[in-house]
């Protein structure tokens, strides 16, 4: 079992969710995060000009997949949907999972 952690642009979140749903992947957990990477930062306006913020809002999507063979498919779906080709598109991290249980009984 794997947990696929994708960090994507907020405006791509809906698209990724929809794309995953289309592939039959429903369960996921979403967190609002900020990140720093090769993307240098966003300029914000203040009273008299610009200033740089290096913490850029991102969305973290965590998907646990029970069947490891789905891994490639999920990664590809996310990559295809969230890719814009510009810095700041985000990353995908895969970590091993030992157990995945449903609380409801």
């Amino acid at each position, binding site marked *: 079992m794997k947990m696929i952690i994708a960090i994507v642009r907020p405006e791509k979140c809906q698209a990724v969710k929809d794309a995953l749903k289309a592939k039959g992947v429903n369960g996921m957990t979403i967190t609002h995060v900020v990140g720093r990477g090769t993307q240098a930062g966003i300029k*914000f*306006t*203040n*009273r*008299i*000009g*610009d*200033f740089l*913020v290096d913490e850029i809002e991102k969305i973290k999507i965590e998907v646990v997949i029970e069947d490891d063979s789905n891994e490639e498919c999920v990664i590809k779906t996310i990559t295809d949907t969230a890719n814009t080709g510009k810095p700041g598109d985000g990353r995908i991290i895969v970590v091993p999972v030992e157990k995945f249980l449903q609380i409801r009984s």
Partner: protein
Amino acid sequence: MKMMTKITMAAVAIFAMVSVVLLSAPFSSADAGDVADVAGANISWVLVSSALVFIMVPGIALFYGGMLRKQSMTSMITQTLIAIGVMTIMWVAVGYSLAFSGDGAIIGNLSHVFLEGVTTTTTGSGISDAEFALFQMMFALVTAAIVLGACAERIRYTAMVWFLAIWSILVYAPMAHWVWGGGLFDQYLTVLDFAGGTVVHICAGVTGLALVAFAGRRSDRAFKTRAHNIPFAFLGCMFLWFGWFGFNGGSGLAADGVAVNAILVSQISAACAMMAWAAVQYLTVGRVGVLGMIAGGIAGLVAITPAAGYVGIWESMLIGTVGGILCYYSVSYIRNKTNVDDALDVFAVHGVGGIWGAIATGIFARPEMTGGISGLLYGGTNLFVGQIIAVIATIVFCFTVSYLIIWLLSKFMRVRCTEEEERIGQDLAEHGEPAYSM
């Protein structure tokens, strides 16, 4: 030190008590019911104006607080509340008396402490002394609150309580006396200040500067953070704008054409300044946002304040437009070229805007609206010179005395937050009360 700060608060409470003992003479509003109806409209209008000026105070708290990071919101609010508390009590206790009684050039006397002898009786169509004291009290509140934005995120709460209490006597009361109470400026100069350009705005801006000069810069962390809540900053600005209708409109103390004119030119000046700021920012930065536009609006309101009763439409457009542009470049200059950490641009907006307004009054004042005093444009030089001297005097006086007060206080208590406290934020470090819970 800990002791000291405890005494701070205790003193204020005791202070309120003492008044009871001090004053045996009854407050003579006995004949309040007999007030001639002819004064009704003015009474009503100045009461409304007082309420409108009051609402500027929370406006300032939200305007400033919204522009800080979220760890300083509670702190800005408590400091504003303390400004309300301290200034109200000090004004009633001695401030009004020092500002508006006697013929002294420097300061008034103590004949009206605790508003003794200040009655609600009206004569003719004018408002009563008590109502005047009320209206003026609101100005004291607003001035104190404006100061807080300059030195935000640095000065400790208890120090601010003491500072304001002393400052209200040593700085604000003399200023009000000089300009409106028949003191210095009235006696030796030709000076016009319709609604408080010097007393309120230059004074507040310069006082803020003095506090910043004393307390120094914030650590980089607080300095770089962006506004945590733009809607609050906007809402605060709108309260200020709304309240300014009473601030400028009520300053003629009557519901008449002067009030109408004052409000009309205020609205126009504010709109022009906002658009001018937006235009300059757009040309310089390529983008315009809420923070710029509201600062522009405030700049226009500040600039028109001393002139509101003495100029007409086109002057107000000019005063506003120039005010907006000037303040924009002042903010830009102070932020980028100096080492001064005026957190919320109080000097750049209220100080510079107020100075421009005072000078503009000296240029544009129409003799037929001032009772004969002419601005430069109409051939008068006395007024122009008077305004400039008044501005300089105000700057020197407010800066020096404010600096001395805070310097003196620092000998008795800790005035400045530590770097650690600054990092955590005053909300938590001083008040244990984060503004928002998740």
